[in-house]
């Protein structure tokens, strides 16, 4: 399960970061499927309706499952309630954070901001830090040394990936970062993507969150019960599995250091419950190519441009069937990746940009 040290330097202030800037991989021009301005304008249109409906369902389900879990606390009947509450708290907030961070979920900006702040707290991502890290993720998607959100590096650390399903390492790092930020410390890596004028805000949020967790822990100690922590904080661990399950599929096993989202991102079909939790981010090539399109319009965008994209992976299970063998092979050859085949109707990859990567895939 372990491999030789990577030739890739994923540090944001390391060798590959400098190389990516020097060789033009950073802030590069990316491939886009042709879509007419008229069609794109229609797809980009914002609306409060779908996100208000979905947020009302989400909050109602959180309240009912949380109340049920508390009511049945101390009996086995609380388990299914915590199962639902955990996924809503520790997984669906991944997509709420994401979409509201883009500002596309609602037309009304304060609604995006409100859901963004709540979701960030639940998923334990500092709303300032992660807004800027995600900006970089879209500028330099899976560019080694530039993208701070590469979830599985090469060669893959499979133990770390598996631990992600119960959120242990993520929560540990999130808590460490929160306390460090609350102490007024912004790391060198964070300084590479958070503008200086935004850094005090990251510190302020970290201090507020530290206070909320301190009150929760105090409440647990005072009441002599784990229940407050089961409702605030711990769901990020026991409910993380769904967002990790679908999140690994976004880019896992695909190319790095390329400037075509068709090569480094995966679109797949999945069941409607997972799509509700994930807010349609299974259309991941489409999202990266056109991040202005709201989650509720992604299925329509997919229909419009699928002739130019690799065939979607048919299910979550199929995604793991194609991704896990790639991870295992990368333990021996970290340059290996899965090259997504394009349909005959697609414009070809610009191989001159991706020669090294393509050669590795053919290994």
């Amino acid at each position, binding site marked *: 399960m372990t491999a030789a040290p990577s030739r890739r330097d994923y540090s944001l202030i390391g060798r590959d970061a400098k190389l990516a800037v020097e060789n033009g991989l950073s802030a590069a021009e990316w491939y886009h499927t042709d879509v007419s301005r008229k069609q*794109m*304008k229609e797809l980009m249109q*914002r609306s409060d309706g779908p996100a208000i409906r979905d947020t009302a369902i989400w909050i109602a389900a959180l309240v009912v499952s949380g109340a049920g879990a508390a009511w049945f606390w101390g009996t086995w009947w609380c388990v299914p309630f915590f199962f639902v509450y955990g996924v809503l708290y520790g997984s669906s907030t991944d997509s709420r954070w994401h979409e509201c961070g883009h*500002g596309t979920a609602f037309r009304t900006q304060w609604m995006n901001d409100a859901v963004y702040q709540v979701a960030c707290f639940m998923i334990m991502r500092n709303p300032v830090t992660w807004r*800027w890290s995600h900006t970089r993720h*879209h*500028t330099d998607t899976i560019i080694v040394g530039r993208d701070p959100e590469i979830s599985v590096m090469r060669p893959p650390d499979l133990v770390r990936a598996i631990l992600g399903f119960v959120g242990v390492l993520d929560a540990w790092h999130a808590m460490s970062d929160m306390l460090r930020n609350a102490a007024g410390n912004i790391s060198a890596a964070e300084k590479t993507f958070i503008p200086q004028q935004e850094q005090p805000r990251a510190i302020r949020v970290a201090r507020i969150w530290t206070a909320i967790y301190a009150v929760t822990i105090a409440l647990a100690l005072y009441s002599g019960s784990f229940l407050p922590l089961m409702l605030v904080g711990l769901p990020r661990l026991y409910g993380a599995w769904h967002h990790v399950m679908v999140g690994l599929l976004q880019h896992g096993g695909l190319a790095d250091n390329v400037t075509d989202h068709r090569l480094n991102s995966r679109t797949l079909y999945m069941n409607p419950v997972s799509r509700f939790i994930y807010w349609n981010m299974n259309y991941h090539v489409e999202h990266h190519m*056109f*991040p*202005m399109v709201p989650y509720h319009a992604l299925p329509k965008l997919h229909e419009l441009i699928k002739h130019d994209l690799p065939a979607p992976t048919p299910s979550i299970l199929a995604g793991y069937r194609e991704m896990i063998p790639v991870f295992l092979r990368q333990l021996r050859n970290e340059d290996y990746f899965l090259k997504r085949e394009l349909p005959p109707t697609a414009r070809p990859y610009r191989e001159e940009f991706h020669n090294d990567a393509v050669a590795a895939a053919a290994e």
Partner: protein
Amino acid sequence: MNDWVEACAAEEIDEEDVMRFDHGGRTFAIYRSPDDEFFATDGLCTHEKIHLADGLVMDDIIECPKHNGRFNYKTGAAKGAPACVNLKTYPVKVDAGKVLVQIG
């Protein structure tokens, strides 16, 4: 250098939309507001030099197509991260159905 330059015909831009205009090696964005007024700004987002003409106009706001940074296109003011630096704006007038921009 304060000449008025013809950018496009007024009818070429829909209401609540934006259009790219290149002139003299520079690129601009021309806007038509929902209340049928015209405005002009620099054409590239101040965050990462993306063409704003591919973005979305909502009321007084232009949203960058790459990272969703927001500007008030009437004043140039940056209104939402990752846009932090204001856009430069230019005077615009409509004459005989043509949109003219004063490029300083």
